[in-house]
């Protein structure tokens, strides 16, 4: 199983869509709320070099935003 970590805030629509997409494809992930977790917020900015949510980390690879194609490719999700 790939190690997947989602950095998000509770109020962003693409975060919701992203997490639903992962759940639908039975991908387990760690869900971190950067609105509350300051350390995770810094980690996200540092790793992604940007300040928007969502960010997904898949086995150390960073994907910014809900980039369905890239996420599918990294996780081997087929249409």
């Amino acid at each position, binding site marked *: 199983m790939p190690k997947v970590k989602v950095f998000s*805030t*509770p*109020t*962003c*629509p*693409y*975060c*919701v*869509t992203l997490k*639903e*997409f992962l759940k639908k494809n039975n991908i387990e992930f760690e869900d971190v709320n*950067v*609105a*509350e977790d*300051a350390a995770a*917020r810094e980690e*996200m*900015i540092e790793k992604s*070099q*940007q*300040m*928007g*949510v969502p960010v997904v980390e898949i086995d150390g690879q960073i994907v*910014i*935003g809900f980039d*369905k*194609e890239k996420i599918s490719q990294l996780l081997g999700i087929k*249409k």
Partner: protein
Amino acid sequence: MANKKYDLIIIGGGPAAIAAGIYAARAKINTLIIAKTFGGQMTRKTVSIENYPGFKSISGADLVKKFVEHLQEYNVKIVSDSTGVIKKIGKTFSVKTAHEGWFDAMAVIVASGADPRPLEVPGEKEFIGRGVSYCTACDAPIFADKAVAVIGGGNSGFEAALALTKYAKKIYILEYAAEVKAEESNINLAQKSKKIKIMTSVEVKKILGDKFVSSVEYQNRRTGQAAALDVQGVFVEIGSIPATGFVKDLVDFNERDEIIIDSRTCATKTAGLFAAGDVTDVQYKQIGIAAGEGVKALFSVANYLRK
């Protein structure tokens, strides 16, 4: 391979599309909803929604959840993707999505709402996601203890600024006109906040930074003087533009780029193609209105399909 065919395709995931979807399902119309995201502009709401009947006060995210749960009670097919093109060949519409291919239908409701309007100054595009944000509700928490500018002294700008007081250490509201234009209560709250500074007659000229935004250059329109503010975040709240890129030839637009509809029926100039909500020239833009327009469009679709 032939495209998958439906009676109706609804494009959008805001209140107009969801209301139309619920009515379509109940009318047993074979329907596909193509939505980039669900909730639309309701998800951009930074403070509670207090004017949608039945809910005295509810957050945008919670109201969206209620809408979506209601829709999912029914057996409506949903594709989470963005629409690229609509074509009409004979009596059939073909709709192309970015990733999921083509779908066909006998009727279409365009309910794609509106996207945030960009400022169009140098530095804006370059720093999207690196300080520039169009979604205060999404990104506000990331600017904890930072100084930020909210561009736009309308109601959305004020609500954004007030929401940011929870996180940011300093918030400048920058308004182009000589006076701000927001609800009295929001202006009062902002004036009382020690964190918020309201600045009028300000024309933003440039967004500067290295890796991330570090300042905003502006000109005082009263004095003509140029100046800069040190900020790490820029929240753009200057209104919206209709999301119509995929439907160019089949409809007419007014001077604001809104789809012109027959206000009685939501019909456009193309038979079988209807539009509802903020994407149209309907005079007022609210959740209740968008939902109602979606319902109106659906009744027109039902009528059209019977013919």
